[in-house]
């Protein structure tokens, strides 16, 4: 790695880790506070809205003035109903956008398969996009459908996490919080204010925010169009982009306003906007680790989980940067200078924006797949085979290295249960985490949560490569084509949303198959996680003795890292061997 790369990555990690504690503290206050209460004066500004929302929604107050506590089943039903309603709304908006207002470009209704896929995609916080935003979705659909889901799907993840953390922190309790209150408070006090701040920052860098229709620019020299006629003007799509981009980054959504996502100059114009956007990807997932420690009244536990994430993230980040910087030996063999210098970034620049270069493209690719964000500022399809393997594998790990807002940490806590179980046995005690004994029920729920994404990715890819219609839209032959399909299902099956761009995914097969994959891995994890939360909440908490395995020390962090990596590696080694690994070996052997 170049000095420039080390400085940039260190700056990024430094700012990210510095933000963990204040943001984590703030989010803990929000998740534990009563109606209208929020720190930093936000309670005074936004608080009055909260009781009004509860009254409109019919949320009953409990004994302590907070909304009534729910058991895990009620909580799960609430979350599922809320998401089902969101699905119907997004689907309906897309199908009816031609008769609804807010459509200055006069776009027609979205095709049914694509509308289904997009609705699942945005509700499940995946934001896989089989369509090009600026030529498919009206402003109303973007704002009221996709924009709203950007907020509430993120809020869903944080709410479920809050329920699980309460389950771990409480003793002999039956309630794990109120899902309506959690959804409301997370949106009102965390997502809206943060997005507003970020959106203003982005606008300052030149990201567009307008309700006007597309702009037209007169070309200085006319070009010949595809049909041979002279083209004198360029149509530049605009729209209310900054507000959407802020939440798409912060809420690990990733669904871009424009087709090429954050590679688009109006979505991500400068180095500063790039830094802010990539920071926003990991900001909340990292901060939630601290929130977790705060809420279970043992901050070391939060640091330990964050440490495990960082320990996996940093080497993979360095490897991606190194691999992309090394470039393609095939290109080097043609006599092209691949070395970085003051005059050029060097390395593999195919599919990368010149204004971001190798380091910021690789950083973004690693961050966006570590977190289940899925926005891109470069085309992962064009990465070197191993440079593309790392983002794919980060998704296949189950999106638990930072992961989605809330969902990353609750997924990681499921891995913690597995790690604690094996580690507990190895020290000769019935395994316990935060004093809660891990028994068959928790183990079953953790097993489902870990198993579902693996199963979805593997079987989805298997079905696709046997289906002629699915094979037909693969752009490259051989192992790279296989990687494209595997990447698509890894992305959908872990609610990431990024794509190996070569795959033509807006087909009936992929719209349905990937839609189902997104749906399964979102809700078949949420339900077991909430069930585990309910089961943990009613347990007694065993006191700590010298025989208790400390889950905040380096040994356990190492154990957790090993479990995540081993499960991820053992599951996907054969598939990866047939995709990026063989592609790499062939490239080297040429």
């Amino acid at each position: 790695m170049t000095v420039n790369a080390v400085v940039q990555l260190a700056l990024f990690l430094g700012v990210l880790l510095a933000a963990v504690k204040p943001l984590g503290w703030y989010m803990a206050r929000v998740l534990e506070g009563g109606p209208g209460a929020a720190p930093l004066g936000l309670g005074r500004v936004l608080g009055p809205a909260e009781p009004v929302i509860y009254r409109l929604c019919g949320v009953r107050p409990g004994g302590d003035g907070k909304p009534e506590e729910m058991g895990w089943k009620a909580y799960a039903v609430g979350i599922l109903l809320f998401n089902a309603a969101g699905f119907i709304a997004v689907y309906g908006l897309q199908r009816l956008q031609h008769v609804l207002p807010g459509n200055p470009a006069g776009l027609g209704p979205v095709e049914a398969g694509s509308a289904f896929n997009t609705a699942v995609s945005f509700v499940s916080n995946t934001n896989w996009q089989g369509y090009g935003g600026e030529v498919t979705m009206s402003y109303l659909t973007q704002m009221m459908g996709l924009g709203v889901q950007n907020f509430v799907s993120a809020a869903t993840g944080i709410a479920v996490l809050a329920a699980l953390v309460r389950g771990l922190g409480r003793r002999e309790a039956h309630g794990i919080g109120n899902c309506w209150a959690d959804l409301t408070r997370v949106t009102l006090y965390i997502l809206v204010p943060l997005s507003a701040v970020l959106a203003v920052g982005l606008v300052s860098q030149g990201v567009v925010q307008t309700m006007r229709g597309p702009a037209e620019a007169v070309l200085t020299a006319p070009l010949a169009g595809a049909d041979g006629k002279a083209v004198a003007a360029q149509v530049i799509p605009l729209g209310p982009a900054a507000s959407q981009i802020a939440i798409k980054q912060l809420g690990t959504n990733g669904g871009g306003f424009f087709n090429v996502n954050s590679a688009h100059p109006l979505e991500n114009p400068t180095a500063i906007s790039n830094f802010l956007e990539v920071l926003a990807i990991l900001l909340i997932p990292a901060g939630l680790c601290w929130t977790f420690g705060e809420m279970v009244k043992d901050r070391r536990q939060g640091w330990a989980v964050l440490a495990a994430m960082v320990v996996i993230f940093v080497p993979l980040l360095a490897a991606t940067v190194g691999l992309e910087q090394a470039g393609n030996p095939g290109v080097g063999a043609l006599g092209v200078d691949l070395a970085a210098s003051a005059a050029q970034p060097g390395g593999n620049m195919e599919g990368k924006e010149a204004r971001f270069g190798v380091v910021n493209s690789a950083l973004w690719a690693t961050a966006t797949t570590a977190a289940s964000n899925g926005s891109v500022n470069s085309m992962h399809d064009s990465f070197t085979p191993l440079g593309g393997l790392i983002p794919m594998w980060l998704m296949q790990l189950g999106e638990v290295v930072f992961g989605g807002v809330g969902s990353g940490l609750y997924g990681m806590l499921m891995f913690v249960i597995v790690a604690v179980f094996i580690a507990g046995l190895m020290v000769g005690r019935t395994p316990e985490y935060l004093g809660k004994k891990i028994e068959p029920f928790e183990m079953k729920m953790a097993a489902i949560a870990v198993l579902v994404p693996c199963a979805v990715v593997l079987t989805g890819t298997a079905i696709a490569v046997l289906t002629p219609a699915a094979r037909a839209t693969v752009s490259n032959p051989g192992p790279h084509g296989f990687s494209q399909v595997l990447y698509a299902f890894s992305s959908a099956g872990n609610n990431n949303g990024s794509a190996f761009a070569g795959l033509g995914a807006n087909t009936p097969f992929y719209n349905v198959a990937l839609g189902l994959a997104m749906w399964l891995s979102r809700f078949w994890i949420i339900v077991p996680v909430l069930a585990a939360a309910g089961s943990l909440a009613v347990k007694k908490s065993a006191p700590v003795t010298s025989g208790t395995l400390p889950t905040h020390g380096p040994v356990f962090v190492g154990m957790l890292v090993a479990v995540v990596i081993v499960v991820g590696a053992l599951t996907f080694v054969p598939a990866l061997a047939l995709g990026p690994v063989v592609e790499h070996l062939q490239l080297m052997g040429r």
Partner: protein
Amino acid sequence: MSIAATGKSPFAVPNPSSPASSPRPRGPGRRGVFDAAIVRPAVVSALMKLHPRVQARNPVMFVVWVVSVLTTGLAAAGLAGRGEVGGYSPGLVLVIALWLWFTVLFANFAEAMAEGRGKAQAASLRRSKREVVAKRVEARPGPAGATDVKSLRPARVSASELRRGDVVLVEAGDIIPGDGEVVEGIASVNESAVTGESAPVIRESGGDRSSVTGGTQVLSDWILVRIGSNPGETFLDRMIAMVEGAKRQKTPNEIALDILLAKLTIIFLLACATLLPYSIYAVGSAGAGGGGAAPITVTVLAALLVCLIPTTIGGLLSAIRIAGMDRLVQANVIATSGRAVEAAGDVDVLLLDKTGTITLGNRQAARFIPVDGATVEELADAAQLASLADETPEGRSIVVLAKRHGLRERDMHALGFDGRPASFIPFSANTRMSGVDLPDAPAHPGGRQIRKGSADAVEAYVARMGGRASEQARAVVADVSTRGSTPLVVADGKGRTLGVIELKDIVKGGIAERFAELRRMGIRTVMITGDNPVTAAAIAAEAGVDDFLAQATPEKKLELIRQHQRGGRLVAMTGDGTNDAPALAQADVAVAMNSGTQAAKEAGNMVDLDSNPTKLIEIVRIGKQLLITRGSLTTFSIANDVAKYFAIIPAAFAATYPALDALNIMRLNPSTAILSSVIFNALIIVALIPLALRGVAYRPVEASKLLLHNLVVYGAGGLIVPFIGIKAIDMVINGLRLV
């Protein structure tokens, strides 16, 4: 242990200084791991266990069983000339199928070995359960000592006809026909059949030595025993059932581990099953350099699957469980369930009785401290007189101490005068004093009364006799108490306080080290004693316990246990008295002494046949070992998979993607690499049988150190061993041209 108990059987005092050392061999004695007498039937049993119904109990091994059937079918098809396209020769497929079957058989063998060891144990127990003739008496025996044994007309019945509540006469030479309680008489009993201890023990009616076990033999005298259990429910039966039935019940920990293993199996099943479509796609689109290769064969997928799923732990799981129970039985402990044993590994708090556990059973007189001008000789003389009839160990130790002060032993009967005997006042819980009233005699005109007892009781006596409480005695009493000793105050009938006898508790040698060991295991020790808080604190400090409960009553004990449990702690205790029963029933791990009462044994969930209160340490160790063995072998099993991928993936796809040969870092022969992996996978089960039976060693160190140690040994070891093992097997196969 009951608070009132003053001592245990004088015959069979457990040896507390070496309780953690291995228990004595019993029955067939300690066996080597591969004892021919056990191996031979185990081989037969391993074959019998191939029945699918047996296999279905273990999800991991069931998958191996199904895959073995499938591969055998493929081999048969190959031999019939219909083998898979591009697959191995039928002979090689057959060899792979055979080794897959060996994998199942080796797992069966491991289980059969463990069962065989248990069965040998049970058989030796059963030998002691021969058919006994019982002498049933119809009449309910009268008050103590009232029955004339010769007047009883016992009916001779078979022991198996006895029911709960029957009373039987057992005389010298007879075998006690069933578990029960002595209702009358006293006898010495040889309990070696159950305890392995050859020294006889005393059993008598009343108190805490009244319990007898069926199958033991009365050596002298006679006793009337009320039978406490119906046929088939005696301790021997329970012990045999536990040894033989260990394979049936699964603990919650095992169920959770089963779920984890099933999850891993499903993941690998998916990873292998989806490889076929991936391979078909790869062959179809390989283009660059994949000329004309066939997709991966089902044989290779079957072999890959069996190598990847956690067969090592899956195959040894039941052997580990059975061997754990076997170790417990060898430690002379009967548990009612495997759950109780595992709970022992989780114990946070251990309640121990002071007397007999922490201190030697008896306090001993250590010093005479005269007060108010009395001389030491005067005090010694009075103390001796008051203790002559006192048969308690404390009483005897006072006489012994007096002797050292130059006083001869006196004859109790010579104390009388003129036909009026001296009358001895025995100790009672009400008066808390004992003593002697001497008749009027020239040596002491007007008679002489001497009392010894607890400070406040004697003070009250002195006041009754018109004397004044001695300030000096009070000071001495306080001083003695702070030293952890028990003060006995001696006074005479004239209201004069003579002095104080210091009774010292003798803390057992080596006990402090054991508590330190418990502390390292993360277990708090709490001493339970009837002593006052000052005495208790001193002994607690000397013995090194973490906490104590003074002036304990059964209610206080129960409350203490509940209080700890409310805090989420797991409490273990040992006990033997009837008044321990409620606390034993409340504790999570309750070990009753076999010498204890029937009520105590019923209330506990384990019985220690050696009646050794520090046996709990051993039980905790066995419980922890069980879990550690499971966890370590699970880690080992999963870590093995890394090497297997490196062996199988390049070999399986060598034809489609020759470039993948770069992953063949072991430089295996591609045509034998898969067979070598399968053979390694089967042999590692056999290699680990001794470890599964013996258990992974437990060291009482900090949990994270223990984890690190086991991770290095079994995690890193599990990564490295298969690389060496598979390479070695591949070299042997190719060196000998076996294929």
